[in-house]
């Protein structure tokens, strides 16, 4: 099954999915079209695997009405090994989400447009990952954009917030498209071709190269959701149906990282040497800011969206560290950093999918997204609890999960970069390590909060108290559970099989020898070894005697009484007294006060007859995204003002319009006749 075969199957299955979505009646539509989308995902995986294992000679040419050769080369799809990795990521996430969607999609998400857009969305991402030239890359990019915008608009009738989120998303995505188009146009003009291989061979430098680099970086950073340009992410992902936001968070955002990796390593390597600190700063800032916002929000899907910004930030940090070390020509360690970037990408894809699918099940069961109103779901939703728990461990980078292996590799690269050689490294590496450690710590807190308040203790609202059952009679709910289990298995699997996965990535990136695998474990050549199997064995080895000890003691003291929890002596422990997500994050809001700028309002209303006695005290605190308040809100209002001013130009007087024409005539006469 060559890459070309995979891509062609993907095309045909997408067409089939669209046809099924339109033709099949509503009841079976999710199963039929979802199955076809699942097929597209699997085709993506096969394409990726084929691209990784063998360098494809054959290409898929997309017929386009514009004649080739006069400035635009023929559109061809020939995934590079690196593209293949992202095809696998997209395919895998797409397949799992489609499987989940078959049981989950309801209402507008399961409409004709919902399912056809989902299949086209997967195809668009595959196109981007396997594009061989500028126009097909942009074609994939925009197909992905339009399909995801349509999917985002699924619940537009239900909630007004969906529309504003869709507008923000569409505008930011178009900003990314236009900056990419500009960057690529400049690049193609210097390389005199739009095919990536020729562009890479042209080694473009000079001012056009720098302008192209910055435009392309802006485009990819916007899609990746790096900090100054992340504003659309926490708005769009919560509003989309859960299986769609899973694909958006786990796969679509990664294509921004793919762009940054390809941009810095193959398209403009010389120019990007100057900007390695910029890329590093973008990554570190996104990591820290993303997880800080995630740790204090109480909306589950918004928390997961911000954690996507954090994980993408970590991946871009890894790329930045790789570039920095390569500049200081510490080759092997730089290779490790880039391998870490790919590991971070793949691991985040795995656990973020499961987290969003879990959030989807919670939303469907209780209709609640706000963690402050959830709780006690461990009793009614065992499968979701286990899968969400494993994925949360992955997100918090605890041992034997994919997150741990990825972050371990990046930390090794950071620690083993020799800073004695030049001062920039001596300062940049420790600062990066410090901020990254803080990010990991806050990530821990965020996911303990998310898992703890959502699943443990007693339900904090009626909706959470009587959730819909996890598995109904219909087979589709089994599909949902199966998707979550597969995702969780992937998180653990990637954690355990980190050796073979890392060696594939190092071969994909073209490094040899720096990363080798030993019976599943990972040996970084000059650094050290991580063997998750051995770690797990040691852990089990110690757990067994403890378990035996417990069994022995249990026989002697069997009874376990259930009693009321401690309530300072009284029986006053109602679920409302439990700690909620907001209160859990209260210490952080205080500690990081100046970074978050919480808005607090305190109204004290006194009694009429006596100004001392207070009648009522109302306290409200709200933490908003300061990047949005400081930059985007003024920009939006500025645009509105400019719009109103500009419309005054067309004030209806025919004399003004004739004046325009007259001025143009006079100007032309002066220009041509003088």
């Amino acid at each position, binding site marked *: 099954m060559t890459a070309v075969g995979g891509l062609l199957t993907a095309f045909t299955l997408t067409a089939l999915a669209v046809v099924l979505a339109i033709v099949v009646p509503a009841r079976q539509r999710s199963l039929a079209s979802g199955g076809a989308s699942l097929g597209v995902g699997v085709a993506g995986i096969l394409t990726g695997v084929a691209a990784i294992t063998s360098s494809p000679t054959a290409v898929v040419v997309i017929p386009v*009405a514009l004649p080739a050769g006069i400035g635009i080369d023929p559109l061809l799809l020939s995934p590079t090994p690196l593209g293949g990795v992202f095809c696998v990521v997209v395919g895998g996430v797409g397949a799992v989400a489609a499987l989940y969607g078959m049981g989950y999609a309801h209402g507008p998400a399961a409409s004709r447009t919902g399912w056809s857009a989902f299949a086209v969305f997967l195809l668009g991402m595959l196109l981007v990952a396997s594009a061989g030239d500028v126009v097909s890359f942009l074609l994939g990019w925009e197909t992905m954009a339009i399909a995801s915008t349509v999917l985002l608009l699924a619940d537009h009738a239900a909630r007004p917030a969906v529309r504003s989120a869709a507008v923000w998303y569409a505008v930011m995505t178009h900003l990314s498209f236009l900056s990419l188009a500009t960057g690529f146009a400049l690049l193609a003009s210097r390389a005199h071709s739009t095919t990536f291989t020729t562009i890479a061979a042209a080694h473009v430098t000079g001012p056009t190269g720098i302008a192209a680099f910055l435009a392309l970086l802006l485009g990819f950073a916007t899609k990746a959701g790096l900090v100054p340009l992340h504003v659309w992410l926490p708005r769009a992902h919560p509003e989309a149906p859960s299986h769609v936001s899973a694909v958006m968070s786990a796969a679509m955002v990664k294509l921004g990282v793919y762009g940054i990796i390809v941009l810095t390593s193959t398209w403009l390597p010389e120019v990007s040497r100057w900007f390695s600190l910029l890329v590093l700063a973008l990554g570190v800032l996104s990591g820290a800011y993303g997880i800080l916002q995630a740790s204090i929000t109480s909306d589950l899907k918004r928390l997961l969206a911000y954690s996507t910004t954090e994980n993408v930030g970590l991946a871009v940090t890894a790329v930045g560290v790789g570039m920095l070390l390569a500049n200081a020509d510490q080759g092997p360690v730089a290779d490790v950093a880039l391998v870490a970037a790919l590991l971070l990408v793949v691991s985040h894809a795995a656990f973020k999918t499961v987290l969003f699918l879990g959030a989807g099940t919670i939303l469907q069961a209780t209709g609640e997204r706000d963690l402050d109103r959830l709780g006690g779901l461990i009793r009614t939703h065992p499968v979701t609890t286990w899968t969400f728990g494993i994925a949360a461990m992955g997100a918090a980078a605890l041992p034997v999960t994919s997150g741990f292996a990825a972050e371990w590799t990046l930390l090794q690269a950071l620690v083993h970069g020799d800073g004695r050689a030049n001062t920039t490294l001596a300062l940049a590496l420790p600062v990066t390590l410090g901020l990254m450690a803080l990010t990991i710590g806050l990530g821990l807190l965020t996911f303990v909060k998310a898992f703890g308040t959502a699943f443990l203790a007693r339900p904090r609202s009626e909706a959470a108290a009587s959730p819909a059952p996890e598995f109904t009679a219909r087979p589709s709910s089994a599909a949902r559970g199966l998707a979550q289990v597969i995702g969780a298995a992937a998180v653990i699997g990637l954690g355990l099989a980190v050796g073979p996965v890392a060696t594939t990535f190092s071969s994909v990136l073209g490094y040899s020898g720096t990363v080798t695998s030993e019976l599943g474990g990972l040996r970084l050549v000059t650094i050290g070894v991580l063997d998750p199997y051995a770690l797990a064995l040691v852990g089990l080895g110690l757990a067994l005697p403890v378990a035996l000890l417990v069994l022995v003691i249990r026989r002697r003291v069997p009874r376990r009484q259930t009693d009321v929890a401690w309530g300072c002596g009284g029986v006053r422990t109602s679920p409302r007294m439990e700690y909620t997500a907001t209160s859990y994050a209260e210490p952080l809001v205080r500690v990081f006060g100046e970074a978050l700028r919480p808005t607090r309002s305190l109204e004290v209303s006194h009694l009429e007859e006596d100004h001392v006695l207070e009648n009522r005290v109302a306290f409200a605190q709200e933490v908003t995204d300061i990047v949005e308040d400081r930059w985007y809100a003024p920009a939006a209002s500025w645009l509105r003002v400019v719009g109103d001013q500009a419309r005054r130009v067309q004030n209806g007087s025919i004399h003004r319009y004739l004046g325009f024409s007259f001025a143009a005539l006079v100007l032309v006469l002066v220009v041509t006749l003088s």
Partner: protein
Amino acid sequence: MAAMLWLPVLVPTVLGALVAWRHSDAYARYVPLVAALAILGIGIALVAKGQVVTSSVLRADAAASYVLLCVGAVAVVALWGGLSNPPLGGRGDALICAFLAAMSLAVLSDNLGVMWVAVEATTIATAFLVGHAGTRGATEAAWKYVVLGSVGVAIAFLGIVLVYASSRTGGSPTLSWVALVSGTVPLSPHLARVGVALAVLGFATKAGLAPMHSWLPDAHSQAPAPVSGLMSGVLLSVAMYAILRIQAVAAAHIGVGLVHGLLLTFGLLSLAVAAFLTLTQKDYKRLLAYSSIEHMGVIALGVGSGTTLGLVAALLHMLGHGVVKAAMFVLAGRVLAITGSSRIAQVKGLLARRPDLGWPFVAGTAALLGFPPFVTFFTEVAVLIALAESGLWWAVGGAAALLLITFIGIARQVLSMTAGAPEPQPDAPDHPLVHDTPSLRATAPAAIAMTAGAVVSFLSLVFVPVLGAAAAALGVSR
């Protein structure tokens, strides 16, 4: 075969006369559509034939037959869609037929003078169509349309006169495009320069390029839906086609630096006008009109970039944009019919209330915003690459920024109309001319137009040779 050339001009005129005479009977409404189908048929035949066909004044080379095809296609979409709008009456249908005849003559004429007369005739034919509604707004729009349009085209006439005068130095002055382009007729450089510049300036007014664009929003928003669809879709492109003819003459004699300079400035100005005036636009028909200005700006930039790629992209953009814009105006007409007001604020939850109108409207907007699979995506990317190719990096940056602002404006307005829950909206005004109920027959034209807009971008077998020949015919140097 040569006689066939006269059909696109004669058939509409004869049918127009017939309708004007017996406008009472029932199927008078279908006559303009028949004329449009005739033009489309002949356009396809000419394009398929691939050779240059001439007969006395008319000449159809590759470019002319392609543009005729565009005229036919857009006319069919607009008029077939227009059937579901309130009827225009005998006089209106006759005028539309005259309009189609004038456009065909303008496209096919080899003589620049005759081309000018035909373009002026389009203004005359559409004057009363714009003012058809008879309301205060329609009269005002018609007045401005005629005055500004005629003044602009008069300047173009001055340009053509000077070009004719410049050809006198070679003994036998001529206005025949073939002679002028073949280089056998030497042109005195000064006169030719002024003539070409003024002609481009004049036709730019008819093409709706800024700063001579002010008539377009009023005319296209007040005219009945099929008429504004026709004007926005293809009349602007015919004017741009005239500019391409003039540019070919300039390329043969005095070089295209001046023409491209003008087109680039007009193009960027049009993008700027469209960008800033759609940001907080209150009326959705005017929004579509400004989007036409934006797309003509993109076409001007494509031609102004001076590369073959730019020209090919511009030609393809004419077809892609024309077909979609005509369908959009037809839809806007029907939305106006059911909501009674053309204010954006009055239209809420179109997707939920009338999905048969909402989804084509959203699809059309996606096409206008340059999303794949519509052809506007490929052409806009090609124009950006063409501009970068000829080193105009500032134009690339400027165009990208302005396209973004236009996107913000249009996306926000259209989503405010289509998305969201449908409040209990008082249904159509108490006396709807045509009670608009969702019917396949009414939705078919827009749906077919959108699919055509998408399919065209992938028909490489058909369009690559046609566009290549058209670009060669227009004789772009690089």
